[in-house]
């Protein structure tokens, strides 16, 4: 199968898809008139182009736009749901950590007071007394 372009075939095809000079146009007209092989090629190409060119608009069928809108809506809902659960997971984790800290503080201080649970140091009588002594010494 010969798939090389002749000079005239190349010009013929280019003339339909790109601007050609006046001289090229004259040459082509002359060749088509005098060369039956090129004339036949021209007819064949034109037939192919006519058959290929779309004459009616295409479509994906009825309710295509509705299907798209439903997909977008469903996807948005899905994303909202994922975001909610993503943060919910961390919320639960955070609460768990807080409870664990509170329990550990309670066990360490061995006190069932709010200060003990929240890890706030309580001053003992000795602490207060030693501070007073220190202050007196400075004076």
């Amino acid at each position, binding site marked *: *199968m*010969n*798939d090389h*372009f002749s000079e005239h*075939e*190349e010009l013929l*095809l*280019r003339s339909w*898809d*790109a601007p050609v000079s006046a001289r090229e146009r004259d040459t082509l007209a002359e060749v088509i008139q005098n060369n039956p092989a090129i004339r036949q*090629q021209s*007819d*064949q*190409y034109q*037939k*192919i*182009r006519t*058959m*290929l*060119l*779309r004459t009616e*608009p*295409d*479509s*994906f*069928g009825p309710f*295509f*736009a*509705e*299907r*798209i*809108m439903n*997909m*977008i*809506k469903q*996807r948005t809902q899905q994303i909202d749901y994922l975001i909610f659960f993503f943060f919910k997971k961390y919320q639960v984790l955070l609460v768990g950590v807080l409870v664990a800290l509170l329990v550990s503080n309670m066990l360490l201080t061995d006190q069932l007071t709010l200060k003990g649970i929240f890890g706030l140091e309580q001053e003992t009588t000795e602490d207060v007394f030693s501070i007073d002594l220190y202050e007196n010494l400075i004076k």
Partner: protein
Amino acid sequence: MDQPDDEVLIEKSKEGDMAAFKTLVVRHEGQVAGVIRSLLGTTPEAEDVGQEVFIRFYDALNKFRGESKVSTYLVRIAINLSLNELKKRKRTASRYASMEAADGIKGIEETLDLKEHLQYAFDKLDPDFRAVATLRLIEGYSTEETAGILEIPLGTALSRLARAQQKLRLSLTKKLRP
């Protein structure tokens, strides 16, 4: 009643107006369907790719600056996704695969009428040639627009176009004889 133009619909869509986006889908479905079905045939994948085109467009609305027309932008996505699909499946003539298996390529060419044979030969084209031929010869874009959509030089578009047409003509020579 006059429909608002694409720019207005895009702005409304960006603000969350779903009816405006739906109008855009309805308006451009034909062009997108034409391009995809020329490349993939009337297959279930063609509609999947069509849906993907509009979903991607929706996702990219805020990035859309209006530097190209909406139709050009959509057709470009459609072409790229269709070419990806073709590479993925690598069955360029799937709609004739069973006939080829039964009759062989020569046999099938003889049984098809001219229009079917043209479709068959078109499906056999290399995807890059097919993309150019789809835009220029089927959808009727200018050669400059075709090159622009495919982001290739004009000379490359012209050369692929010429080569595609020659392959089609050579495949159909017998049937095209008067």
